């Protein structure tokens, strides 16, 4: 009798271990063995707590970071849009600067959509309302954008570095959390880190160039020429 109990115990433990491996399959087996169809549809209601989902590896650890990063990209997208607007006014009239910032704004918006697709690919969800504080999030307090040309380049350089830091943070979480997520790390490397290094480098170059060009008593011509240069980029 004892032997029988022990055997049953071992068998049930084994079944439990298998159940952990095959959550979705088990739920389907259970649902289909019941005589009603409602049990089956109950498992696939489309709710995010469905047992059958695309979540694996370290998604639990990176999901909140990516959510924060999506909100950061959107915030920055509108900040750049307003910066472009500022240089599009008749008083500023700097089409080159406008083009530069409009481009960054569009890029951030497109990146937000790409990130939404990535997080949902991995079984994650997006939350636009709650702002999770992390190294991947940026301040929602908008700095004053009515600045001159050199200041704006400095602002943009800082922005780009913040975004690069956010992406780096997601990457760090993906490879150092208790459950690792090489897929997410790879995605960040492939789609963001290289591109961001380029844009940081470009803006740093612009800021240093313009600062040098402005070492004259009246920098108005320097700024005009620099704007013309930016238009051709």
């Amino acid at each position: 009798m004892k032997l029988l109990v022990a055997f049953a115990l071992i068998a049930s433990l084994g079944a439990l271990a298998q159940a952990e491996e095959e959550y979705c399959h088990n739920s389907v087996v259970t649902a289909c063995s019941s005589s009603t169809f409602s049990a089956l549809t109950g498992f696939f209601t489309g709710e995010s707590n469905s047992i059958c989902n695309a979540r694996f590896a370290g998604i639990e650890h990176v999901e909140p970071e990516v959510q924060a990063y999506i909100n950061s990209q959107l915030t920055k997208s509108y900040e750049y849009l307003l910066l472009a607007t500022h240089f599009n006014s008749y008083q500023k009239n700097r089409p080159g600067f406008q083009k530069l910032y409009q481009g960054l704004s569009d890029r951030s918006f497109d990146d937000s959509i790409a990130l939404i697709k990535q997080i949902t690919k991995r079984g994650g969800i997006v939350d636009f309302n709650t702002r999770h504080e992390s190294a991947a999030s940026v301040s929602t307090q908008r700095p004053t954008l009515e600045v001159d040309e050199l200041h704006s380049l400095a602002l943009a350089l800082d922005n780009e570095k913040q975004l690069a830091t956010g992406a780096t943070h997601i990457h760090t979480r993906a490879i150092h959390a208790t459950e690792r997520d090489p897929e997410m790390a790879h995605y960040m490397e492939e789609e963001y880190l290289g591109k961001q290094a380029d844009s940081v480098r470009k803006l740093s170059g612009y800021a240093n160039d313009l600062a040098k060009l402005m070492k004259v008593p009246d920098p108005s011509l320097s700024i005009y020429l620099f704007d013309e240069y930016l238009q051709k980029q």
Partner: protein
Amino acid sequence: MVKLIASLLVLAVVAQQAYGDFKSLSKKDSKSFAPVRRNEGKKLKQNNDHGQDRIVKNDEWSGECKGSLEVPEIPKGWMDLKDGCLNGMRHQIQEEINASYQYLAMAAYFARDTVNRQGFAENFFKAAKEEREHGSKLVEYLSMRGQLTDSVSNLITVPTVAKQEWKDGAAALEDALELETKVTRSIRKLIQTCEGKPYNHYHLVDYLTGVYLEEQLHGQRELAGKLVTLKKMMSTHGELGEFLFDKSL
């Protein structure tokens, strides 16, 4: 020999000037550009050291820096967009951005693996982009009319969304239709304001009617058509109807 003396003289002059610049740094002599240069170097270096630091923090920069060119006086008569119509435009811009956000939330919901309605998701992503585009075109219009020379920073606030989950595709399409109707009503109100006495903004009203209302009305008709087709398919075939409809989007 003469050359040597000349170069010595030049050196002496340069040295003196440098000394003078140094003194003027403490006196904050606005005619000298050396202090500006020094600050620039310092700030840029700081910026390289701490990426998060804002360069604009330093007040003496904005005060003394020659980067801020003076705005020359020009005639102002051509800038005739003001008061109610201007405020209405600013409000409309925010409305468009809010709509863009709401569409983004819809897209993100239907892109979920457990919802898996990629056709809906792509449609809503497209709509989110369009609404953002509408907003930024209105912003450009204001710039064209001589506006937005100041108070640009608070033109758009990053919104929150009212809803992030939907019962099914039909519920989302219904919300989308309501959202478009709301935007249309808001544009109509804006047109009324801008058309009113004492000053008729003919051009803006024409633009809003010809471009914006045109797009709104066509968009509404399209959404209504989709919603009806989907509802018909779902009334007898439920999930299968939605599945097939999604693939056809």
